[in-house]
């Protein structure tokens, strides 16, 4: 008897943004799900696109499987923070020279 399906809802607020999951709705068809998603999640906010996906079609990781997200190794070599502090210190040494050069350049 229970024939409504759960659809997960993803909304894209503008073309520059990704679709973002906002919640889910119960609906009898994908078309109804899109309509209900608009009524539930877009009563105020503008948007350019909605995706609905049947809940059982979503493949997911297990929250308890922490190993899947393991971060034992140092990741700073992949990040901005791994470089900008040392770079800034080095640049400071060159800063005075740089300013002098600019001064000479203006003089010419």
């Amino acid at each position: 008897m229970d024939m409504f399906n759960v659809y997960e809802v993803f909304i894209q607020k503008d073309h520059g943004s990704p679709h973002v999951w906002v919640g889910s709705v119960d609906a009898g068809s994908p078309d109804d799900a899109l309509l209900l998603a608009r009524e539930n999640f877009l009563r105020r906010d503008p948007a350019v696109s909605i995706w609905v996906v049947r809940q059982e079609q979503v493949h997911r990781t297990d929250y308890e499987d922490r190993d899947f997200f393991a971060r034992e190794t140092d990741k700073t070599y992949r990040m901005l923070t791994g470089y900008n502090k040392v770079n800034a210190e080095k640049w400071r040494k060159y800063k005075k020279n740089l300013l002098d050069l600019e001064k000479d350049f203006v003089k010419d």
Partner: protein
Amino acid sequence: MTHEERLAQFMARIERGEKIESTDWMPDEYRITLVKFMQMHALSEVMGALPEKEWVPKAPTLARKLSLMAKVQDEMGHGQLILRVAEDLAKPLGKSREELVGELLTGVCKFHNVFHMPAPTWADAGIIGWLVDGAAVVSQAALLDSSYGPYARVLQRVCAEEGFHIQHGESICLALAEGTPEQRQMLQEALNRWWESLLLFFGPADTNSASATILMKYRFRTKTNEELRQKFFDKYVPRIWSLGLTIPDPDFRWNEAAQRWHYTQPDWTKLKAIARNEGPLSQYRLGLRRMSYEQTKWVREALLGKAGAGAIA
């Protein structure tokens, strides 16, 4: 892993402040109590639309009518969102959405005590938006940090929209407060009518109910009824006074020594009557809900029909 080990692990997660998700293992006690709480919250949102919807056809201007309709729609939307979250949690218990919704009409599921009260004037619509929704935001904002992730996430949207309701209610009350002597009096009378309900709203201070204890234990909620009531006073009493309104309790005052508001206790027996659906408008509003549920049955069936057709195709 034994049940005890799983439970210990679960409690450790709660104590670390981690969020529980619908697909995680959880003790039945957590699941059952949360389903009940969220079911009541969802259906209270739906029932909460009824006292105000009475004022949609009678709103004094088109602008007021539009904003009131938007608010009524929001409350229904909140009911939908919270029911959806409750539904995921209830599924392993073999309980469907249909049953969750139906239990309101059989009296198994209660709806919030504040929605059993009449709203006889336009000022009541204002007071509901300003102070009843104000009280709702105080209690819901305290749950934004709830241990149950899906509910905490839905509440972010609910609280944001309730913020709009409060502004809308404030707007009505401010207009009346700045209006004719008759309008001011209407506002004062509405406050007088709702004051006791606003105290009852948060429940008794010394509640030790089984479900409240369980909700605290699992950090689904962390604030007591009295803490929330005092918070509500902190925020709204100065505003009420600044409009020149009188709080209908001669003993109401700030107790400097205790650093808390002193108030005359409301008649708590009224809460018991309301819990049996014997409040002033309990049966009337349940009747409205029953009628609307029956009248829209064909819509649900038509939508189900489409689901069936989709399955065949």
